């Protein structure tokens, strides 16, 4: 039995965020080295600020400035900083209640080691040199023994407000297609298409999934299908996809390989796109080193009768 395949799958995207009035003021404030909280109906000051009162659910809009100094309320040591974290040397994740605030803000605390951090310790903001209106405008917190500084009492109105941010996201996976798909891919390397037959309904699945989605039983009997097949339905794609190296227009088709009970999807070539039709008989065309057939081309046989493939659209 061939080895089960594995490969990295990286999913990443730069998401945009519209901020709304409260977060807009908060992040613009950070750019100007001003930390803002929001006043709730019961008189508390929440930092970071939120748009809606967690007790009454009413809108919140009274922004108040708090000090860039505060007290650690709890923390955890991060031995091995990972990609994208605020510091690249070990640091503490800390909840810091800034002077004037009733809630704590999560950020990094730069300290020489876990022995130098304790709940109740005094810290202050270390501002980033380049600030853009983002939470990273606070580079981190650092230990601080000095006095609580005077604050001007900013009301959150600034010139040139930040209204949106870009939040890059990245997820690293190890992807495995599993036993059945691995065997299918292995067969393709010798240019054979091998599906699996359900022991219950006897349908042949190509590509196989390892189980029959209708009967819910494991499939294991391997069945070679094709190589020829019938175009059961199709569309003509006129949009060039960013991530695909295929010239438009091209035909994207459902192809029922001979012996398969489910159509697979492929591109049709070797025939003008506007002459492709339902029932067209096709065969795979391989390119050197290709993992899959590059496309399917007409075999020259007469078209299949509609009744022979109408259940395989």
């Amino acid at each position, binding site marked *: 039995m061939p080895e089960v*395949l594995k490969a990295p799958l990286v*999913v990443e995207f730069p998401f945009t965020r519209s901020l709304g009035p409260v977060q807009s003021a908060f992040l613009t404030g950070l750019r100007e080295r001003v930390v803002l909280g929001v006043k709730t109906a019961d008189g508390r000051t929440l930092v970071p600020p939120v*748009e809606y009162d967690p007790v009454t659910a009413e809108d919140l809009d009274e922004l108040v400035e708090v000090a860039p100094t505060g007290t650690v309320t709890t923390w955890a040591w991060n031995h091995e900083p990972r990609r994208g974290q605020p510091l690249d040397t070990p640091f503490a994740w800390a909840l810091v209640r800034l002077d004037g605030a009733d809630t704590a803000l999560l950020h990094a605390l730069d300290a020489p080691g876990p022995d130098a951090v304790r709940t109740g310790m005094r810290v202050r903001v270390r501002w980033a040199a380049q600030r853009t209106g983002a939470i990273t405008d606070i580079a981190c917190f650092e230990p601080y023994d000095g006095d609580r500084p005077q604050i001007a009492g900013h009301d959150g109105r600034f010139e040139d407000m930040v209204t949106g941010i870009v939040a890059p*996201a990245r997820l690293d996976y190890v992807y495995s297609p599993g036993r059945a798909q691995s065997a299918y891919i292995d067969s393709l390397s010798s240019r054979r298409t091998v599906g699996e037959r359900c022991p219950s309904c006897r349908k042949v699945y190509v590509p196989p999934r390892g189980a029959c989605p209708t009967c819910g039983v494991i499939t294991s009997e391997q069945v070679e299908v094709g190589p020829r097949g019938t175009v059961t339905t199709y*569309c003509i794609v006129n949009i060039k996809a960013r991530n695909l190296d295929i010239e438009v227009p091209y035909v994207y088709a459902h192809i029922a390989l001979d012996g398969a009970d489910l159509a697979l999807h492929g591109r049709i070539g070797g025939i003008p796109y506007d002459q492709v039709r339902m029932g067209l008989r096709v065969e795979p065309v391989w390119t050197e080193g290709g993992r899959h057939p590059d496309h399917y081309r007409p075999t020259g046989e007469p078209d299949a009768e509609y009744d022979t493939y109408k259940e395989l659209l």
Partner: protein
Amino acid sequence: MSKEPVAVVGIGQTKHVAARRDVSIAGLVREAAGRALADAELTWADIDAVVIGKAPDFFEGVMMPELYLADALGAVGKPMLRVHTAGSVGGSTALVATNLIAGRVHGTVLTLAYEKQSESNAMWGLSLPIPFQQPLLAGAGGFFAPHVRAYMRRTGAPDTVGSLVAYKDRRNALKNPYAHLHEHDITLEKVQASPMLWDPIRYSETCPSSDGACAMILTDRAGAARSPRPPAWLHGGAMRSEPTLFAGKDCVSPQAGKDCAADVYRQAGIADPRRDIDAVEMYVPFSWYEPMWLENLGFAEEGEGWKLTESGVTELDGDLPVNMSGGVLSTNPIGASGMIRFAEAALQVRGQAGEHQVEGARRVLGHAYGGGSQFFSMWLVGAESPTS
């Protein structure tokens, strides 16, 4: 013990647009929820639980957004549930909320669904570069276009039917102030002249990408008695699923859709949907899905759905109006799209649909589907209480 009757007493939507850059996601959902509360003349304190739905978290990249949205929806200290069933989610979200009332778990529930597509990338979210797979296609249109061709082949429908649907829905949208697309200069010729994207689907026969939210207040019999405006009553609701692809799947008219409709009709005592139902708001992201769903939902015999469209039966002033709001073809904040269908059905039987009101609508079906035609959710609402 019988089920508690369920009533819709508040409906709120945002004006759906391509991009709401002035609000956060929280601000967007808040706007719809606030309008639904105002319609019901209730406050946050009157809500017992919140049921929220949206399409995959991948779209906006906010994982488990319901946690962050609890305070915006007044859910702090209350039960909050998140539902996800791909494009049908707006419908299934409303049905989960419905069941909480029908089962007498809660008296009054806020249900809401949204999508902020301008901050998301649905194309990317649906087309991950899965290792060992051959990348062939990007976008939902290419996935559904072969099924449309299969429908045309199966029924012999003339190839103009899709353009008739798009032309009708875009004109209906002009009467709906919340619809995204307001194409004042739309003509049938323009629809038919628009470029083929995924032949047989033209540009004008596809849905837009929208930012929007839709909210409803559902309540029990006692809550309905206090309602300042006529409620819409639930007469039947159901969900069904099937795999995306399996040997024998009918992609043109999926069995799960037929079964879901049959369940709803049984609950509501509908013997002949074409005769007994006054209007339908169905999930049509590509124009040809109107005739396809007309058959799947039992409004026409197999192969005959396109004739209803072609003969004008589904026009706003026709005998069976379809997509009075302008439909998904005019507004598509994906996660909210199913709930907008359900809400439109409720607006119609409450007599509150404004310029797109169907005269005398007493029983209206709301329909949603999602994924690769694998999730279905539907409800039938009426102007009268099911017990009366």
